[in-house]
Protein backbone atom coordinates (compact mmCIF):
# COMPACT_ATOMS: atom_id res chain seq x y z
CA UNK A 1 0.00 0.00 0.00
CA UNK A 2 1.35 3.45 -0.96
CA UNK A 3 1.67 6.43 1.32
CA UNK A 4 -1.73 7.96 2.18
CA UNK A 5 -2.57 11.39 0.81
CA UNK A 6 -5.50 13.81 1.22
CA UNK A 7 -6.09 16.11 -1.78
CA UNK A 8 -7.66 19.52 -1.02
CA UNK A 9 -8.88 21.83 -3.80
CA UNK A 10 -12.21 23.54 -4.48
CA UNK A 11 -11.96 22.66 -8.19
CA UNK A 12 -13.02 19.03 -8.87
CA UNK A 13 -10.99 19.02 -12.10
CA UNK A 14 -7.79 19.81 -10.19
CA UNK A 15 -8.57 17.15 -7.59
CA UNK A 16 -9.03 14.61 -10.38
CA UNK A 17 -5.76 15.66 -12.07
CA UNK A 18 -3.83 15.35 -8.81
CA UNK A 19 -5.50 12.06 -7.90
CA UNK A 20 -4.60 10.54 -11.29
CA UNK A 21 -0.97 11.64 -11.00
CA UNK A 22 -0.65 10.40 -7.42
CA UNK A 23 -2.28 7.03 -8.07
CA UNK A 24 -0.18 6.47 -11.21
CA UNK A 25 2.86 6.94 -9.00
CA UNK A 26 1.79 4.48 -6.33
CA UNK A 27 0.24 6.79 -3.75
CA UNK A 28 -3.15 6.19 -2.16
CA UNK A 29 -5.58 9.12 -2.18
CA UNK A 30 -7.61 8.48 0.97
CA UNK A 31 -9.85 11.57 0.76
CA UNK A 32 -10.67 14.56 -1.41
CA UNK A 33 -11.82 17.82 0.17
CA UNK A 34 -13.28 20.92 -1.46
CA UNK A 35 -12.65 23.41 1.34
CA UNK A 36 -10.51 24.02 4.39
CA UNK A 37 -13.07 22.91 6.95
CA UNK A 38 -13.34 19.49 5.34
CA UNK A 39 -9.55 19.32 5.08
CA UNK A 40 -8.98 19.88 8.78
CA UNK A 41 -11.71 17.37 9.69
CA UNK A 42 -10.34 14.71 7.33
CA UNK A 43 -6.81 15.27 8.56
CA UNK A 44 -7.91 14.68 12.17
CA UNK A 45 -9.89 11.61 11.19
CA UNK A 46 -7.46 9.93 8.79
CA UNK A 47 -4.00 11.12 9.88
CA UNK A 48 -2.63 10.92 6.31
CA UNK A 49 1.08 10.90 5.45
CA UNK A 50 0.63 14.08 3.39
CA UNK A 51 -1.91 16.73 2.39
CA UNK A 52 -1.91 18.71 -0.88
CA UNK A 53 -3.53 22.06 -0.06
CA UNK A 54 -4.99 24.64 -2.47
CA UNK A 55 -4.67 28.24 -1.25
CA UNK A 56 -7.77 30.06 -2.52
CA UNK A 57 -10.87 28.19 -1.36
CA UNK A 58 -14.30 29.13 -0.04
CA UNK A 59 -15.18 28.92 3.67
CA UNK A 60 -11.64 28.44 4.93
CA UNK A 61 -8.59 29.10 2.77
CA UNK A 62 -5.48 26.95 2.50
CA UNK A 63 -3.33 29.11 4.79
CA UNK A 64 -5.82 28.95 7.69
CA UNK A 65 -6.24 25.22 7.14
CA UNK A 66 -2.47 24.71 7.14
CA UNK A 67 -2.21 26.52 10.48
CA UNK A 68 -4.96 24.38 12.01
CA UNK A 69 -3.48 21.14 10.72
CA UNK A 70 -0.08 22.07 12.14
CA UNK A 71 -1.74 22.85 15.46
CA UNK A 72 -3.17 19.33 15.48
CA UNK A 73 0.13 17.75 14.42
CA UNK A 74 3.29 19.86 14.26
CA UNK A 75 4.99 17.23 12.05
CA UNK A 76 2.19 17.14 9.43
CA UNK A 77 3.44 17.20 5.84
CA UNK A 78 1.53 19.75 3.77
CA UNK A 79 2.35 20.67 0.16
CA UNK A 80 0.69 23.90 -0.98
CA UNK A 81 -0.91 24.16 -4.43
CA UNK A 82 -1.25 27.72 -5.70
CA UNK A 83 -2.55 29.40 -8.83
CA UNK A 84 0.17 30.91 -11.01
CA UNK A 85 2.58 32.61 -8.68
CA UNK A 86 0.99 33.70 -5.42
CA UNK A 87 4.39 34.51 -4.00
CA UNK A 88 3.20 36.27 -0.86
CA UNK A 89 0.83 33.48 0.19
CA UNK A 90 3.40 30.81 -0.61
CA UNK A 91 6.10 32.52 1.45
CA UNK A 92 3.67 32.74 4.34
CA UNK A 93 2.79 29.06 4.01
CA UNK A 94 6.44 28.01 3.97
CA UNK A 95 7.16 30.17 7.04
CA UNK A 96 4.22 28.55 8.82
CA UNK A 97 5.55 25.07 8.10
CA UNK A 98 4.42 23.86 4.66
CA UNK A 99 7.12 21.56 3.29
CA UNK A 100 6.90 22.42 -0.43
CA UNK A 101 4.62 23.94 -3.05
CA UNK A 102 3.29 23.28 -6.55
CA UNK A 103 2.22 26.06 -8.91
CA UNK A 104 -0.86 25.56 -11.12
CA UNK A 105 -0.94 24.74 -13.97
CA UNK A 106 1.48 22.01 -12.97
CA UNK A 107 3.55 19.35 -14.72
CA UNK A 108 3.15 15.75 -13.51
CA UNK A 109 6.89 15.52 -12.79
CA UNK A 110 6.78 18.58 -10.53
CA UNK A 111 3.92 17.11 -8.51
CA UNK A 112 5.75 13.83 -8.00
CA UNK A 113 9.01 15.53 -7.11
CA UNK A 114 7.30 17.78 -4.51
CA UNK A 115 5.54 14.77 -2.93
CA UNK A 116 8.73 12.68 -2.83
CA UNK A 117 10.65 15.62 -1.39
CA UNK A 118 8.01 16.20 1.30
CA UNK A 119 7.90 12.54 2.27
CA UNK A 120 11.69 12.23 2.25
CA UNK A 121 11.65 9.54 -0.44
Amino acid at each position, binding site marked *: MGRRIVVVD*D*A*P*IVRLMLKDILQENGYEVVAECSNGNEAVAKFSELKPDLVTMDI*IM*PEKDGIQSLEEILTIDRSAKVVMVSA*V*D*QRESLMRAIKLGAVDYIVK*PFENERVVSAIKNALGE
Partner: protein
Amino acid sequence: MSDQSRINNAITLIARLSIDKSSRTLSKFVRAGARIELERAYVVDVSDATKVIAHGESEVVGALVSLTGDAPFKFLFFVGLKDSFLLADLILRRPLGTTTGFDLYASSAVQEIGNVLATSISNVFATDFQIVMKSTPPMVLHDYAETLFEEYILEAAAEKNELFIIETKFFVVEHNINCHMFIVPLHGSEEVLSSIANRM
Protein backbone atom coordinates in the same frame (compact mmCIF):
# COMPACT_ATOMS: atom_id res chain seq x y z
CA MET B 1 -6.60 64.42 -21.58
CA SER B 2 -9.23 64.11 -18.81
CA ASP B 3 -8.52 62.30 -15.55
CA GLN B 4 -10.99 59.59 -16.54
CA SER B 5 -9.26 59.05 -19.90
CA ARG B 6 -5.91 58.70 -18.15
CA ILE B 7 -7.38 56.16 -15.73
CA ASN B 8 -8.90 54.23 -18.62
CA ASN B 9 -5.48 54.18 -20.30
CA ALA B 10 -3.97 52.77 -17.09
CA ILE B 11 -6.58 49.98 -17.06
CA THR B 12 -5.84 49.21 -20.70
CA LEU B 13 -2.11 49.02 -19.89
CA ILE B 14 -2.81 46.56 -17.04
CA ALA B 15 -4.94 44.47 -19.40
CA ARG B 16 -2.19 44.43 -22.03
CA LEU B 17 0.42 43.37 -19.47
CA SER B 18 -1.93 40.66 -18.18
CA ILE B 19 -2.62 39.27 -21.64
CA ASP B 20 0.92 38.01 -22.21
CA LYS B 21 1.05 36.29 -18.83
CA SER B 22 -2.46 34.89 -19.27
CA SER B 23 -1.69 33.48 -22.75
CA ARG B 24 1.28 31.53 -21.46
CA THR B 25 -0.62 30.26 -18.44
CA LEU B 26 -3.65 29.20 -20.43
CA SER B 27 -1.50 27.46 -23.08
CA LYS B 28 0.24 25.46 -20.38
CA PHE B 29 -3.03 24.56 -18.70
CA VAL B 30 -4.85 23.29 -21.79
CA ARG B 31 -1.66 21.92 -23.41
CA ALA B 32 -2.41 23.81 -26.62
CA GLY B 33 -1.42 27.18 -28.00
CA ALA B 34 -3.68 29.95 -26.71
CA ARG B 35 -3.66 33.38 -28.28
CA ILE B 36 -5.28 36.23 -26.39
CA GLU B 37 -6.14 39.53 -28.02
CA LEU B 38 -7.38 42.79 -26.60
CA GLU B 39 -10.66 43.05 -28.44
CA ARG B 40 -12.04 46.36 -27.19
CA ALA B 41 -11.63 48.87 -24.38
CA TYR B 42 -14.66 51.09 -24.13
CA VAL B 43 -16.92 53.17 -21.93
CA VAL B 44 -20.56 52.19 -22.00
CA ASP B 45 -23.68 53.49 -20.30
CA VAL B 46 -24.87 51.03 -17.64
CA SER B 47 -28.30 50.76 -19.26
CA ASP B 48 -26.67 49.63 -22.52
CA ALA B 49 -24.00 47.40 -20.99
CA THR B 50 -25.67 44.05 -21.60
CA LYS B 51 -26.33 44.95 -25.23
CA VAL B 52 -22.58 44.97 -25.91
CA ILE B 53 -22.56 41.24 -25.38
CA ALA B 54 -22.94 39.89 -28.86
CA HIS B 55 -23.70 36.41 -27.59
CA GLY B 56 -27.04 37.48 -26.07
CA GLU B 57 -29.10 34.34 -26.10
CA SER B 58 -26.43 31.68 -26.39
CA GLU B 59 -25.74 29.43 -23.42
CA VAL B 60 -22.40 30.07 -21.80
CA VAL B 61 -20.41 29.02 -18.75
CA GLY B 62 -18.58 31.76 -16.89
CA ALA B 63 -16.39 32.28 -13.86
CA LEU B 64 -16.76 35.51 -11.88
CA VAL B 65 -13.93 36.60 -9.64
CA SER B 66 -13.60 39.67 -7.44
CA LEU B 67 -10.11 41.10 -7.15
CA THR B 68 -9.98 42.84 -3.79
CA GLY B 69 -7.38 45.22 -2.41
CA ASP B 70 -6.40 48.80 -3.16
CA ALA B 71 -7.72 48.62 -6.73
CA PRO B 72 -10.86 46.46 -6.66
CA PHE B 73 -11.88 44.92 -9.96
CA LYS B 74 -14.45 42.45 -11.15
CA PHE B 75 -13.27 39.76 -13.54
CA LEU B 76 -15.29 37.53 -15.86
CA PHE B 77 -14.15 34.63 -18.02
CA PHE B 78 -16.72 32.88 -20.17
CA VAL B 79 -16.95 30.34 -22.94
CA GLY B 80 -19.76 28.79 -24.98
CA LEU B 81 -21.38 25.79 -23.31
CA LYS B 82 -20.01 23.18 -25.74
CA ASP B 83 -16.56 24.74 -25.64
CA SER B 84 -16.51 24.13 -21.88
CA PHE B 85 -16.71 20.39 -22.69
CA LEU B 86 -13.63 20.71 -24.93
CA LEU B 87 -11.73 22.65 -22.25
CA ALA B 88 -12.44 19.87 -19.73
CA ASP B 89 -11.16 17.23 -22.18
CA LEU B 90 -8.02 19.24 -22.95
CA ILE B 91 -7.20 19.83 -19.28
CA LEU B 92 -7.81 16.20 -18.37
CA ARG B 93 -5.86 14.99 -21.47
CA ARG B 94 -8.84 13.03 -22.66
CA PRO B 95 -9.72 12.48 -26.33
CA LEU B 96 -11.78 15.46 -27.50
CA GLY B 97 -15.46 14.56 -27.46
CA THR B 98 -15.25 12.50 -24.25
CA THR B 99 -17.28 15.12 -22.36
CA THR B 100 -20.71 15.24 -23.97
CA GLY B 101 -22.75 17.15 -21.39
CA PHE B 102 -22.34 19.89 -18.83
CA ASP B 103 -20.92 18.07 -15.85
CA LEU B 104 -18.80 18.68 -12.78
CA TYR B 105 -15.60 18.74 -14.82
CA ALA B 106 -16.83 21.10 -17.56
CA SER B 107 -17.94 23.49 -14.82
CA SER B 108 -14.70 23.04 -12.95
CA ALA B 109 -12.56 23.61 -16.07
CA VAL B 110 -14.08 27.07 -16.44
CA GLN B 111 -13.77 27.65 -12.67
CA GLU B 112 -10.08 26.83 -12.67
CA ILE B 113 -9.22 28.76 -15.83
CA GLY B 114 -11.01 31.77 -14.31
CA ASN B 115 -9.00 31.32 -11.13
CA VAL B 116 -5.68 31.05 -12.95
CA LEU B 117 -6.37 34.04 -15.24
CA ALA B 118 -7.60 36.29 -12.43
CA THR B 119 -4.43 35.48 -10.52
CA SER B 120 -2.38 36.46 -13.58
CA ILE B 121 -3.99 39.90 -13.42
CA SER B 122 -3.40 40.31 -9.70
CA ASN B 123 0.24 39.34 -10.37
CA VAL B 124 0.58 42.21 -12.82
CA PHE B 125 -0.53 44.60 -10.07
CA ALA B 126 1.96 43.03 -7.66
CA THR B 127 5.01 42.69 -9.91
CA ASP B 128 4.68 45.77 -12.11
CA PHE B 129 3.02 48.22 -9.73
CA GLN B 130 3.71 46.82 -6.22
CA ILE B 131 -0.01 46.73 -5.43
CA VAL B 132 -1.15 43.67 -3.51
CA MET B 133 -4.47 42.24 -4.68
CA LYS B 134 -6.30 39.10 -3.62
CA SER B 135 -8.78 37.13 -5.68
CA THR B 136 -11.89 35.49 -4.31
CA PRO B 137 -12.77 31.89 -5.21
CA PRO B 138 -14.45 31.91 -8.64
CA MET B 139 -18.24 31.71 -8.81
CA VAL B 140 -19.28 29.55 -11.78
CA LEU B 141 -22.52 30.32 -13.60
CA HIS B 142 -24.16 28.44 -16.47
CA ASP B 143 -26.72 30.68 -18.13
CA TYR B 144 -27.47 32.84 -21.14
CA ALA B 145 -24.66 35.27 -21.95
CA GLU B 146 -26.83 38.30 -21.31
CA THR B 147 -27.96 37.04 -17.89
CA LEU B 148 -24.39 36.18 -16.93
CA PHE B 149 -23.23 39.62 -17.94
CA GLU B 150 -26.01 41.31 -15.95
CA GLU B 151 -24.82 39.42 -12.86
CA TYR B 152 -21.25 40.43 -13.65
CA ILE B 153 -21.87 44.18 -13.88
CA LEU B 154 -24.40 44.32 -11.03
CA GLU B 155 -21.96 45.56 -8.40
CA ALA B 156 -20.26 48.13 -10.65
CA ALA B 157 -23.58 49.34 -12.04
CA ALA B 158 -24.84 50.09 -8.53
CA GLU B 159 -22.08 52.67 -8.15
CA LYS B 160 -21.68 54.23 -11.58
CA ASN B 161 -23.67 55.38 -14.56
CA GLU B 162 -20.96 54.43 -16.98
CA LEU B 163 -18.69 51.42 -17.04
CA PHE B 164 -15.24 51.10 -18.51
CA ILE B 165 -14.98 47.62 -19.94
CA ILE B 166 -11.92 45.77 -21.18
CA GLU B 167 -12.89 42.91 -23.45
CA THR B 168 -10.40 40.30 -24.60
CA LYS B 169 -10.88 37.31 -26.82
CA PHE B 170 -8.94 34.05 -26.65
CA PHE B 171 -8.44 31.45 -29.30
CA VAL B 172 -7.27 28.00 -28.37
CA VAL B 173 -5.36 27.21 -31.53
CA GLU B 174 -6.17 23.98 -33.45
CA HIS B 175 -9.35 23.47 -31.45
CA ASN B 176 -11.30 26.55 -32.50
CA ILE B 177 -12.38 27.47 -28.98
CA ASN B 178 -13.31 31.10 -28.44
CA CYS B 179 -13.16 32.39 -24.89
CA HIS B 180 -13.83 35.86 -23.51
CA MET B 181 -12.42 37.76 -20.58
CA PHE B 182 -13.76 41.03 -19.15
CA ILE B 183 -12.33 43.37 -16.54
CA VAL B 184 -14.37 46.14 -14.90
CA PRO B 185 -12.89 48.44 -12.22
CA LEU B 186 -15.02 48.95 -9.12
CA HIS B 187 -15.50 51.97 -6.90
CA GLY B 188 -12.37 52.57 -4.84
CA SER B 189 -9.88 51.70 -7.55
CA GLU B 190 -9.65 55.28 -8.93
CA GLU B 191 -6.86 56.46 -6.63
CA VAL B 192 -4.54 53.57 -7.40
CA LEU B 193 -5.33 53.68 -11.10
CA SER B 194 -4.68 57.41 -11.06
CA SER B 195 -1.25 56.84 -9.50
CA ILE B 196 -0.49 54.23 -12.19
CA ALA B 197 -1.61 56.71 -14.84
CA ASN B 198 0.79 59.29 -13.38
CA ARG B 199 3.67 56.87 -13.82
CA MET B 200 2.88 56.27 -17.49
